[in-house]
């Protein structure tokens, strides 16, 4: 790898961690101007920065506002790099269907997880909030998703998560489509009980999702 390339990749990552949207755009333009591979720019520059931001979030050094500002910088950089991607880089992404379970409308947590998943290269289909269990399963089948990610803030709507798993089992899809869950009242114990994977926060969700698709 050329010096200039590794320098630019590092700078891209740093500017994402530093929440500097303008600088990220400038660096991305500069990166393209040097005729460097946009795919690597995303994965080893922007995404790496977001990954570091995720770690800081996990360590509680960063909080929601910082994570969102990092993601603003990352998306701004993506907008510059993405148009230069070659077609074959676009297709083999793993897919995740995400949403807040039926009965719950609190979606900030879900939005953070979505950002971290997109950062790690997943194609994320966001069904929004108050989503019926069957919609998750149908969408996942339709787009051949690898993972369904479910979130809730309320104890009273947790059983919707189990319903999604029952529906998958009913169609014998539980091995093809993994279910990961998270949110305020969710614990690893609950996830184990219903046969789902548990993610404690947005950053851990991205790491978990990656390990789940590697298992496949």
């Amino acid at each position, binding site marked *: 790898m050329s010096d200039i390339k590794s320098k630019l990749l590092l700078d891209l990552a740093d500017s994402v961690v530093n929440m500097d949207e303008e600088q990220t755009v400038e660096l991305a333009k500069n990166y393209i101007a040097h005729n460097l591979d946009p795919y690597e720019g995303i994965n080893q520059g922007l995404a790496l920065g977001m990954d570091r931001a995720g770690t800081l979030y996990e360590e*509680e050094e960063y909080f929601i*506002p910082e994570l*969102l500002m990092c993601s603003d910088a990352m998306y701004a950089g993506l907008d510059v790099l993405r148009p230069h991607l070659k077609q074959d880089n676009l297709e083999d992404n793993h897919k995740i269907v995400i949403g807040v379970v039926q009965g719950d*409308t*609190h979606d*900030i947590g879900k939005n953070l997880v979505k950002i971290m998943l997109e950062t790690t290269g997943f194609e994320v289909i966001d069904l929004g909030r108050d989503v019926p269990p069957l919609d998750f399963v149908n969408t996942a089948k339709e787009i051949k998703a690898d993972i369904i990610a479910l979130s809730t803030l*309320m104890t009273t709507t947790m*059983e919707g998560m189990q319903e999604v798993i029952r529906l998958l089992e009913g169609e014998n899809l539980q091995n093809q489509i993994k279910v990961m869950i998270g949110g305020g009242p969710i614990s690893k114990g609950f996830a184990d009980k219903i046969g789902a994977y548990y993610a404690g926060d947005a950053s851990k969700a991205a790491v978990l999702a990656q390990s789940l698709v590697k298992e496949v």
Partner: protein
Amino acid sequence: MSATINKAAGNDLAVNKVTVHFPSEDLAIEVNEGTRLSECIRTAGLVSETPCNGLGLCGKCRVAARGDLFPPEELECRFINEPNIRLACQARVKGDVWIELLAKEKQLQTIDHGLEVEIELDSSVKQVLLPPLARTAQPYLESLSYSCDSPDLYRKMGKLELRGTLPSYGVIRDHLLIDLGSEPSEILGVAVDIGTTGLSAYLINLTSGETLLKKSCLNPQTEFGGDVLSRISYCQENPQGPDRLQEAILHKVNELVLELTATRERAERVYQIVIAGNTTMLHFVLGIYPASLARAPYRPIFLEQVNLNAKEIGMQINPAGLVVLLPSASGYVGADILAGLAATAFVKIDHPAVFLDIGTNGEIVANLGGRLLATSAAAGPALEGMNISCGCRAEEGAIDTFFIDDNYELKFTTISDAKPKGICGSGLIDITASLVKRKIVLASGRFNPKLDPRIEARIRDKKFYLTEEIYISQSDLRQIQLAKGAIAAGVSILLEETGLPLESLEEAVIAGAFGYHINPDSIREIGLLPKGFRGKITFVGNSSVEGARLALLNKNVLKEINELKRKLEVLELSTDPRFQDYFVKALGF
């Protein structure tokens, strides 16, 4: 009126009990030997100003005290030079003591002495003089101008006829005769607030309007779940759940009524109970499983005022008595809030103001340019000291005030001056505010990596240690940010809805147990209200039970509460597209 003796919390047999008298207030309380006067004043339900948070620095909490006190120490001596004058925050009781409050602000910690609402006594329940019994064949009760449809009263009349006594006094509710006797007697009512955590009840003389006694206790339903949602979940998992929750609460209300009235006979003189509470608690009073309330679109089963026959619902008061559940505005803006608005005459405030009731859900009502907007924010229990590493309820040993001086010395007080065991809500807010003020915590909520050497050693492993065992962690700070961010965002959205700028907001009325003993400066410092709020902060205490009391005393207040229900425009925050932006912006300190 004779002095009432209230037992101080956390009785310990090993410690000597002494009695503290407040002759002017006609009050006496029992406390442990060694208790500070400021704590005695608080335990008695009285208020004395402590601008320096009880650190013995300002000398503003002077009181006159006679009796058996420990001699003043050096700190206190700087402020006292007259006989019998002591600093309430420093002086401790040794034996029986008599205290006179000196501060002008001397007041009960109830809002009827704060934001006073003048109301006329006009209860729907009244005692009336009955006409003499005529020697005719017409049934006496049918000869009256009141209606009467109760076989119980026929039985009572039968007994009077048998003894040849005259039914001289009747009790009416509106135009219905509900009791009669040959002698005048006490006509009582009970006002109740059913909070998710605690219950408060007042015994009221409906003839004089006087509040005779106040009692409070823990909501017995806490054993089925600490918050509203976990109790609904309990019903989800247990078919008997709603019945058990109903039984627990009705049993407790009966117990409170008996404690207030002292005897079963006197409890029979209670003709009306008015109950305020959040929407879910009122559902549980009726034994209703409010499943739909806990799922979007958060639909309650009922919101209207409900009148229940005391006998039917098993309230051990007069069998013809009425139990009134006050109306609610929405699933998460309940009767407690409407009652609080009535008690504080909130709609009559003529400048832009918000009313906040802070608990696991923070309810917010804004009175802005003639509109009444309300919402509820999912704050979580952090501000009450829950879900916090060293958090605890406001009980003995809880750190309740905190302050860091210019030399980075920590000063704090604990409830009952006991050995510190944890941090309660007010302490938590003081601690957070002090850390932010001293830049130990940055605006982002993160511990400052560059700290003054005098304080550096207190931070280990992202925890700020107040004592060897008690600390506040980075993740605790994050919980507080989430809670206050949700509330501040709610206030901002209500303001935006009416187009009024934040600067125009002149007052924040803070209701509920949360407000007590909290330093308003700390509330500003942590940004519980959106940054830029310059108005005044008013604490009104439990305005819910106060509203129930007023509704009991005057039927127009009951009407007013029903009008409030219709007038309030309720917004759902979680589906509001503006919420996330405001919330994220409000997370910082």
